[in-house]
């Protein structure tokens, strides 16, 4: 995926300004920035849901998105929701196998016939991830997917996501306001400025996933991001993260 000098404006409001990013196949990129700076707009441009005012968005591969609000269809069971992700497979038997595999992967065996309202928030989010990762999509776009979960469930979901991506690798763009989440999961973190958003800084994080919260590179990256966002001063800036 590539954004070349992309700007986006809604009426008089300029949301994104001259954003250029290139995302390699299989890379996990997290986007952080102040609230309302245009992170979701950036994701909508990548998904093709919105068009840039100027600049070019290039994307190769099938895109799936995980939304901030509950995107599971409440009238479908867990299995039916996940089967949406494999609906383009021609063979019914293969679709069934894939759905069962995904349910096993997210450890929800026995819940196939449950409806989303019968599951906890964390379970629902796992089903949503399974639906997005089922089948043969290439790109996973995530818009603050864990923001409605409690802190402990969020920590667990990060491990789950790392585990799922290990089994089903995808190119991922994660928009989040959770700095720790970005540092714990992403290969690269893009820090945006306030509106109109521009890229303030990019950090690479080399340590393989899953990463502990206390891993020096995660701690260091978190501090760098906080400094860039003006939350902390720059003491110890950049140690372990580039």
């Amino acid at each position, binding site marked *: 995926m590539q954004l070349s000098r992309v700007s986006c404006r809604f009426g008089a409001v300029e949301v994104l300004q001259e954003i250029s990013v290139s995302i390699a196949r299989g890379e996990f990129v997290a986007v952080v920035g102040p609230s309302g700076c245009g992170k979701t707009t950036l994701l909508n441009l990548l*998904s093709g*849901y919105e068009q840039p005012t100027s600049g070019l968005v290039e994307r190769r591969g099938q*895109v*799936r*998105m995980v*939304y901030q*609000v*509950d*995107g599971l*269809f*409440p*009238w*479908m069971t867990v299995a039916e929701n996940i089967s*949406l*992700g494999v*609906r*383009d497979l021609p063979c019914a038997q293969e679709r069934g196998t894939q759905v069962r595999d995904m349910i096993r992967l997210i450890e929800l065996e026995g819940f196939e016939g449950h*409806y*989303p*309202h019968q599951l906890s928030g964390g379970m629902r989010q796992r089903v949503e991830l399974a639906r997005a990762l089922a089948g043969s999509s290439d790109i996973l776009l995530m818009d603050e997917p864990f923001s409605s979960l409690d802190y402990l469930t969020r920590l667990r979901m990060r491990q789950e996501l790392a585990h799922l991506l290990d089994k089903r690798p995808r190119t991922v763009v994660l928009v989040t306001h959770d700095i720790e989440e970005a540092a714990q999961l992403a290969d690269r973190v893009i820090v945006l400025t306030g509106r109109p958003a521009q890229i303030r800084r990019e950090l690479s994080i080399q340590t393989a996933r899953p990463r502990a919260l206390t891993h020096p590179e995660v701690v260091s990256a978190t501090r760098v991001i906080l400094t860039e966002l003006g939350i902390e001063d720059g003491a110890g800036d950049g140690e372990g993260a580039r």
Partner: protein
Amino acid sequence: MADKPNSIRSVVYPVAVLGVVAAVWTLVWATGVFHESSFPSPFSVLRAFALEIRTGRLANDLIISLFRVTCGFSIAVLMGIPMGVWLGQKVTPRLALLPIVNFFRNLSSLAWIPFAILWFGVGDASTIFLIFLAAFFPVVLATLAAVASIPAVYSRVAHDYGLSGLEKLIRVTLPAIMPQIITTLRVTAGLSWLVVVAAEMVAGRDGLGFAVMDARNGLRIDLLLVEMITIGLIGVAIDSVLARLTKIPSVRWGYER
């Protein structure tokens, strides 16, 4: 602690209330304050009930009224839901037609009785027409509102997973509005039942509404109460049948969140 209903209590409590009502009714009647012709005893009403059942008049009127409600209500639902879905999805027709739909929704269908008699005569057709008018516009408006309030995320997910056109309608739009549709069906079925009685009083030669008028004209208050009790019981029965739709697993989410 929350007061949870259970199946035994949901039967015992209403029966107990019914018993109290019957006891009070009997006591008031026994005091002799009211004349029998204006305040019949529960026993004379029960006798009238038995007579109406034995002669088959009650069943006959009941079947006629139920037939009319079924026809008028079904036509209203079969036409109203598609129209509501269409108006809910398309901005231009909605802007054009919503004021007209709202206008007719606020116009009591009973106001159409003179036209119904002029156009269709006295009998089934005019009554069915009036029931249709009573149910159609509320169904359209409720469906429209339900479609318009479908969370945008469902449309995006449908798009992400390649659901469009008829498949999106069947797998996303209709299931998403089903809980609200069921609630609307319950309300409009009650409305239809109210209208059939009123319409038959004026534009009918038979049916429960006509039987009410007939009993009144014959000063048979006991028969009048028989018809009224039957109308009430059938109304409750219709609602309890439709209420069962809320137990369908794929619509439970609409009542539990």
